[in-house]
């Protein structure tokens, strides 16, 4: 089954040849799984290394028109400490609207270009919207250059370092949330130690025309398998990471979404970003509702949209991400509950197909993160 209106990444033919089950996702034809199946692809990533095609995500450079730091401009829309980013350092941040709601989440990296150019990676489904917002609100201060000629791969898992370092030893030196320019197989790539699975690993931005040959080199290693969108979702869910458009949307603040770590300390003190009134008030007083981790009792997964009820059966919230955690060994979920019910250990009920199932508010991540942080 093919749909000509869907976009294809540079790896499309490789996915089809590898037996990938292609589905429409954010306007692209993407592999949801390969013959290995979601469960084994998930385990492969936790135990060895998984290769993900994330070329559908938006990559762009942001430069300042006046020659000063472009981070000073985008900090107006992003509440993280970005101006302090040194070359080769990156941060997770959010793109806010005027009401302090999250339009998207993204990675912001300082490149080594002398003018302090920033490299951003945004969600596939949001990239046009994100670029429009940046253009509309900051178009007089910055230029945004989408990198449509670059593919993006994520190599994730405990064997990722060994695999990638066999091609370029210097990548072993990177710590979590650091990036550098590396020549891999004669191809200049932008490599960061980051990802969205909870595992150690890398994201590799590679010129589109060189990308398939490069992926083939990685796949030639016995520790590496292609991993589809299905396992990508179960991996990020177990890691307790938000999915844009599901665990938050334009109405949700960073405080509600429990991603307070994305708010820089100085930035909070200064309140110099859009929606600061609401966000600072919620920081001080707590938000009415907050995102929490949920562990259902029994085996029934609680999917997105499942109603959450209190002990008396009153509906108080909804599951925003949920499914089976292959490494956790049971169902896990995330959703929003009133702040009074957000404490770990609070008993709730999940209304699955009209029947109440017991569940408990639990800490996230559900599976320990294994990032390679700097040894201090």
């Amino acid at each position, binding site marked *: 089954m093919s749909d000509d209106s869907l976009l294809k990444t540079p790896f499309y033919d490789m996915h089809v040849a590898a037996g990938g089950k292609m589905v429409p996702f954010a306007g692209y034809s993407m592999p*949801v*799984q390969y013959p290995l*199946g*979601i*469960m*084994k692809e*998930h385990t492969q990533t936790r135990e060895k290394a998984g290769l993900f095609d994330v070329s559908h995500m938006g990559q762009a450079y942001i430069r300042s028109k006046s020659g000063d730091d472009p981070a000073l401009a985008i900090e107006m829309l992003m509440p993280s400490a970005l101006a302090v980013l040194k070359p080769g350092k990156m941060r997770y941040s959010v793109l806010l609207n005027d009401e302090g709601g999250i339009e998207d989440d993204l990675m912001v990296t300082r490149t080594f270009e002398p003018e302090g150019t920033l490299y951003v990676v945004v969600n596939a489904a949001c990239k046009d919207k994100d670029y429009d917002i940046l253009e509309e609100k900051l178009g007089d201060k910055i230029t945004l250059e989408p990198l449509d000629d670059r593919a993006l791969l994520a190599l994730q898992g405990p064997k990722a370092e060994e695999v990638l370092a066999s091609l370029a030893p210097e990548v072993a030196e990177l710590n979590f949330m650091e990036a550098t320019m590396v020549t891999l197989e004669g191809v200049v790539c932008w490599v960061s130690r980051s990802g969205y699975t909870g595992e150690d690993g890398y994201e590799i931005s590679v010129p589109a025309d060189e990308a398939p040959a490069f992926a083939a080199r990685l796949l030639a290693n016995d520790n590496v398998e292609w991993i589809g969108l*299905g*396992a990508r979702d*179960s991996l990020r869910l177990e890691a307790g990471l938000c999915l844009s458009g599901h665990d938050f949307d334009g109405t949700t603040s960073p405080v509600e979404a429990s991603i307070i770590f994305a708010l820089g300390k100085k930035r909070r003190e200064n309140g110099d970003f859009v929606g600061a009134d609401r966000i600072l008030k919620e920081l001080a007083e707590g938000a009415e509702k907050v995102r929490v981790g949920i562990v259902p009792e029994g*085996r*029934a*997964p609680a*999917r997105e949209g499942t109603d959450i009820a209190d002990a008396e059966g009153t509906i108080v919230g909804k599951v925003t991400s949920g*499914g*089976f955690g*292959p490494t956790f060994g049971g*169902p896990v979920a995330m959703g929003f509950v009133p702040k009074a019910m957000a404490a770990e250990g609070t008993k709730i009920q999940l209304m699955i*197909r009209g029947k109440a199932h017991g569940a408990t508010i639990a800490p996230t991540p559900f599976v320990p993160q294994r990032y390679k942080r700097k040894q201090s």
Partner: protein
Amino acid sequence: MTKYTEDHEWVEADGDIATIGITDYAQKALGDVVFVELPEVNASYSAGDEVAVVESVKAASEVYAPLDGVITEVNGDLEGDPSLVNTAPTSNGWFFKMKLANTGDLDGLMDEEAYNDFVAGLE
């Protein structure tokens, strides 16, 4: 003789008691099964009613009653090991047994050859 439905269930009748599960084609399409919600014993269903739910890592799918009848037994092994649906869909991975209201209704289902043709037409 085993009969089949267009919803990819198999029905194996012994007198008026039918054992029901999902086909190999169905388990492959679903992927790794992680949970099966089974009906209550003694509950009665009409053909086409939603009677069970099978959840894979990906999504939840309904299983429909292939014929009118009353549930006589459910496969408790699926509670502890839902992956039986993947590894043994037409044997140990059965879902439930039904006492059929009218065994003559079996004639309205597909035989193996017709089901194989039906599946071939989907691909």
